[in-house]
């Protein structure tokens, strides 16, 4: 296996995530697509660590930080979604227009 296979896999996962974040109407679907993008970045970090810096662990350390930040992000994001749903009674982002004058 060479590095290119892993980078190609992570590029595919990232692009699927971008497509999902751009096209989903459901706000939870957008959050899930963002999680896919986080995971693509983590695959890249672990793969570059293995192939370009063998014996080092800086890439894995960074990926570990990304996992914990992503956990914090999804917790706050989901509680915000719950609060918004309580106010607007919908999960579709095109109806979130309370700030529109």
């Amino acid at each position: 296996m060479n590095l290119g296979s892993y980078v190609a896999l992570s590029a595919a996962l990232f692009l699927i995530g971008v497509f999902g974040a751009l096209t989903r109407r459901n706000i939870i679907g957008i959050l899930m697509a963002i999680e896919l993008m986080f995971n693509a970045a983590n695959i890249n970090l672990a793969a570059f660590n293995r192939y370009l810096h063998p014996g080092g662990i800086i890439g894995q350390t960074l990926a570990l930080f990304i996992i914990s930040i992503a956990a914090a992000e999804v917790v706050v994001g989901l509680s915000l979604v719950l609060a918004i749903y309580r106010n607007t009674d919908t999960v579709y982002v095109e109806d979130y227009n309370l700030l529109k004058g």
Partner: protein
Amino acid sequence: MLEQIVFYSLAALITASALMVVTARNTVHSALFLGLCLAGVGGIFALLGADFLFAGQIMVYVGGIAVLIMFVVMLLGRASDLHLRQMNKQWAAALLVCAASLAGFWKIVRMAGGALATAPVKPTTGPLGLIMMGDYALPFELVSLVLTGALLGAIFFSRSEKSQ
């Protein structure tokens, strides 16, 4: 040979389930496929010799985030959502953005492509613990602060109006 079989089956699992996450009409199915996709990414970590990342991925992502998203999916929405289209009208523009990015990514893949692994895989849990308590002690503590802030923020935003 074995590595290639494992890699290609994991890659097929990850891309197929990620596509289902993005395109499934039923959000519950999306959340289930998200768990499958994250478990596949954990398998990729194991293949890359990142054993602690594999364990963390399974515990935090599959056991935590996917289950949390599942709960929220079940709390929100209504049954009529199953008959509505879940994709907005700009899907063609989104495909265009993805194709343009793919050209850039393809250059990176071509550039980085040829590198081969030189060292055998070694367990990294011990060195990761040492580096967290050594060079990266300050970011480690900052992350714990961020997690505490996220916990408080989640409680603050999700409490009901009556209890305020």
